[in-house]
């Protein structure tokens, strides 16, 4: 069953008097529990596609379906709710809230939702996530007291706290050294296996791409490769 379906999506940005075609019409689907890499060089359109899947940017044409639900006609409020309930985000620059400590940063998305969680249940879940990302001794530290790798671990825990079906990570290792980057990808992979959460991450690092079990490779706004590494390759769409 597809958890995400991207149908002939295009994205055009105005740049002065010129229009930039960032994504020129791509289609693909992502299954529940996938650990998928969107790869490609800078300017290939991977971040744009991730933004559209993450419902923080709208396609100029085409449709993105999340859990079989079309998203193009949704209001700002509905999109916000969907982002909160279904999606988790990991950013290249970590994007932690500087005034909150590790525990509070992870807790933050829970403060935004309508679902009431008991204090005890919340504490247990956050503590489990903190232990899972290996920051048990850093709970009360502020982001500026953490290393890059530690910050990205906090971001991973924050992305998971609402138990989303999909976690989107935009170049999660770009600001980390290679060893730390590998650890982060390993952590994401581990959680993917344990919680069956779908992870979609963009990267231009060939070593990290190989960890994925589904790779979508982009070039100039078009898919040049769409391949599952666990057996049958699929080329849903390849355009020149």
């Amino acid at each position: 069953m597809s958890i995400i379906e991207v149908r002939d999506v295009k994205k055009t940005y105005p740049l002065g008097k010129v229009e930039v075609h960032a994504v020129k019409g791509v289609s693909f689907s992502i299954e529940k529990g996938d650990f998928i890499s969107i790869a490609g060089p800078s300017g290939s359109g991977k971040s744009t596609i991730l933004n559209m899947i993450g419902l923080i940017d709208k396609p100029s044409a085409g449709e993105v379906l999340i859990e079989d639900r079309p998203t193009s006609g949704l209001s700002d409020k509905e999109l916000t709710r969907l982002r909160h309930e279904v999606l988790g985000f990991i950013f290249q620059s970590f994007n932690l809230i500087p005034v909150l400590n590790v525990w509070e940063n992870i807790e933050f998305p829970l403060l935004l939702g309508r679902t009431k969680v008991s204090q005890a249940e919340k504490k247990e879940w956050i503590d489990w996530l903190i232990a899972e990302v290996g920051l048990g001794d850093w709970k009360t530290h502020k982001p500026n007291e953490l290393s890059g790798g530690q910050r990205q671990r906090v971001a991973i825990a924050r992305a998971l706290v609402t138990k989303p079906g999909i976690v989107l990570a935009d170049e999660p290792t770009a600001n980390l050294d290679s060893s730390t980057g590998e650890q982060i990808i390993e952590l994401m992979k581990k959680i993917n296996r344990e919680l069956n959460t779908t992870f979609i991450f963009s990267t231009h690092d060939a070593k990290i791409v190989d960890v994925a079990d589904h790779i979508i490779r982009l070039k100039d706004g078009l898919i040049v490769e769409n391949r599952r590494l666990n057996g049958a390759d699929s080329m849903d769409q390849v355009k020149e």
Partner: protein
Amino acid sequence: MAAILRIAFRNLFEHRSKSLIIGILLALGSMILVVGNGFIDASRQGIRKSFIENYTGNVFISGISQEGDVSLFGVTSVGGLAATPTIPQFDTVMAQIKASPQVKSVTSLATGFGIAMRDEGSGSLSSSGTESLEDETKDGELSNETAMARFLFFFGIDPRDYWTVFDSTEISSGEALKPGQTGLVINESQLAKLSDWMKRELRVGDKLVVQGFSSGGMKLREIPIVGTYKQKGDTTTPEQMAFIDIDTLRVMAGMTVGANEDISLEESQTAMLATDDFDSLFGEELFDAAPAQGGFDEKALQTQLSDTRARELANTVDTGAWQFIVVRTVNEAAVAPFIASLNKSFAEQGIAARAGDWLAAAGPYGQSVDVIRIVFTVAIVILSIVAVIIIMNTFVISVIERTGEIGTMRAIGAGRSFIRRLFAAEALVLAGTFSLLGAGLGTVVTLVLRALRIKAGNPFLEVLFGGTYLSPFVTPVNFLSALLAMLLVGYLAHLYPVSVALRIQPVRAMQQE
């Protein structure tokens, strides 16, 4: 909400320099409000107390003038000296007031103005024995000091009850006016100033030549000084105030029987007065017209001219006339309903009299505090607008700096309402904290100013201070209104920045470096 407040507090602390700029502005505003209002309230309370205890009582009854509002200082009219009306049916009105259980004490009054003149015993006397105001200085201009020394504001009193209604006056030499006695009780400082001006020492028993002026013209009288007075306690009594027997005042103030007569003219007389061709009054036509009505009769003319009844009527002092009744009430809280009931009663009986409170009696003098308050309020409003603009700019800079953070919040599920509440909390926490600090500081400053007992050096400052000493005070209402005003400033200042924040799209989270 607790989480929003926590984030708001921490953000304010994180951006200390900006918070401090905004906070100092808000604290200053709050402090100025507390001190300023404390000052104005003290002034108003001082003037109110002073007026009620010394001149106006709690309730003031006067006649009604078409020219303007009637106060102790006369009629507030545009471009001229309008006659202060006397109270019609005085005995009826007085009887009605005395019958009220609200009344603790009551007396009647009339006021007038005059200037002291040099007499034959003075150091420099002009040939006429009197001189104009312009004689005072070498360059032809009258100095304020000299004018104030000579100027007298007369209270024509009823000695039978005046001294019991207003017991804040202390006779420092001589005696208080007695019923039927002609004379003047003058402020001891004013007497000293007059002595300086006259170049001879004036004492109780001496006579003072006074030129009274009113709408009816000027009257010169020689009045014996029977006593001097000073005020007890901390009050703002003008030194120019002098107590005088009512009969002398009536003469000087033009309170004659004729002044209150309704004289109706025939049509031809009105037409004659209305002429704008003055030459015709002395031309042949006047005499030509006379024979047509039965011939010119010199005898009849003499008879007419020798009839002085009208002139005498115009000059006969109206011995029963009073301009004002002032009442001290038993219960201050019941003053407003008492005034309303009196006015209702006057209207029902067709008596052209009006009851008012001390403010009505104080007239322009009492409104001076309101003028100060209006000026202060306008200044505060202007300062608030400036503060809103500065605070708004600082908030906008803060929003721009936090674009990535706001974008992140939006991306991970924060709705617009969350962002709105977060910024409102930051603005209100900042405004609340610093306005509280400012109001606290303002309270301390007010208490220090009060403890210093700064003395008013001149009559203007006495009015401003509401007494001899500066005695500002802080009321809970002033404290709270300063807090609320600055909370409002903070809230208004955050509205535009929050609209900027709400325009930040979640995708900006991806662009954070």
